[in-house]
């Protein structure tokens, strides 16, 4: 039994765009049968969640600036707009199935 993955979905307020992105992400995970905690947070709360959760496997942000060295971080805007969605989904699955 593998550990359940932790995924952060971060946006400006954790209300608007992250809600949509998290919804789309959950659909994707269900389709690929991946067990994961999807946590919605504000962009400024990423560090706080990284500390309290211990291990974060993936961060998806819909607020721009996806740069980080310790944790894979992806631009989640395609989940909302639909443009480039397949490529992003492939990357998400790749990262989550890597270990």
């Amino acid at each position, binding site marked *: 039994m593998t550990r359940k993955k932790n995924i952060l979905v*971060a*946006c400006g*307020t954790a209300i608007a765009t*992250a809600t949509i992105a998290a*919804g789309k992400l959950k659909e994707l995970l269900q389709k690929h049968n991946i067990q994961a905690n999807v946590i919605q947070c504000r962009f*400024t709360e990423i560090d706080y969640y990284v500390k309290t959760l211990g291990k974060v496997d993936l961060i998806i942000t819909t607020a*721009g600036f996806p740069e980080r060295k310790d944790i894979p971080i992806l631009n989640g805007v395609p989940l*909302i707009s639909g443009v480039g969605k397949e490529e992003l989904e492939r990357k998400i699955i790749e990262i989550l199935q890597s270990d």
Partner: protein
Amino acid sequence: MPFDIISALEAFRNLLNTLGQSIWLPIFLFVIAVIFRAKVGRAFRAAIIIGVGWIGFNLVMGLFFDSMVPAAQAMVEQTGIHFEAVDVGWPVMAAIAYGTLVGVLMIPIGIIVNLILIALNLTKTFDIDIWNFWHWAFVGGTIMTWTNDLAFSILAAVAYEVFCLKVADWTVKPLWNVFPGYKGYSIPQGGGWVSSVPYLAVIKPILDKIPFPKSDPETVKSKLGVLGEPIIIGLVIGAVIAILARFDAIGIAKTAMASAAVMLLLPRMIGILMEGLTAIADSISEYFTAKFAGRRELYIGMDAAIAIGHPTTVAAGLVLIPVTLALAVLLPGVKVLPYADLAATPFFVVAATPFFGGDFIKTVIAGTIIMAIFLYLGSWWSPIFTQTALKIGAITAEQGQIGCIWLQPYIPVAVGAFSMPPGVNYLILIILIIVVLFIDRVKALREFASRLYKF
């Protein structure tokens, strides 16, 4: 006339008021979703969530009125400070906007207007961000309270939509310069983005003439970071208000805690409302995206939240929290105590950052000026906002005033237009729409703008 449309509408409005938003809003949106070919099961679930979100919103508003409003009133009595209302923040403005009949009508009307403009090649922005239609819904819903003229209110809301779509077209360059990954997107969001652009258009050429030292937003971010947490903002402000109100220790602790709760829970409740609304909006935009995909070069219109993560925006937003409070206390005539929107200050500079190419000091200065303008506009419009909330039954008369800060620039424009004689007032808005639609066809103006703004 065989059919009296005014009294029919009046009867319809009374029916809606009797049902309440938690019932008619889901029914209405369910019908819209089914018309736009959403799956019935999915639309039904989403509609129920919207009703649940509205009830949750009312519960937390109850907490706001029970705890924050008496504390703020006591503070005003004790200190003689000039506040008349506490700012309830943009999420509540959005909920109330969609709680009005004009507001909710703006969802289908907004989509149709956007499609017509695309078909006529008058805009490139295809706005899929239906949640943020609330900005023009707010213009229409509160202008309805002011004018009691349904056609004029819808026209005002449409005029603001047209302005938002055109501003989105015009501002893609600064957006793409700062976020190269967002090529193909534009931001027609009528709040943080579009509503500050008219002011930035004036501020930018002036600030660009003045040499400022460089400053690093990252240090500000790490030093002030904790200030940006909604519960911390809520706790501190609640405590300060209670202290100024001369509450005893227990009263201070209770007010501070309730305030932290309001700050965290209010947006969460609107988030639930949002979850339902986006599920429905999604099926609508999927329907149209399928029809439009690949037809011609279009920008996909998104929420300003996609640009909120810039370090300058985050840091300037943090600096703006104390700045906003200081402005509210020091500026004469400001009647709204900034509160819930203090958790959303980065949105007040989300357009300023790209306009100044990420320059931190210029962004903070521009944000301060814009905030002062918003504080005055909000003070002026809060009584009308309160009346709108009263009319739809979101609050009761004895609960007192609620305040807002953020105001769409088309509200003063529409109020000004309405003060003209009947007939002329409509004409002004129609001329304004035409001017906004065609102004970018004037080559001399385009060249002047590109020299002035250097994007």
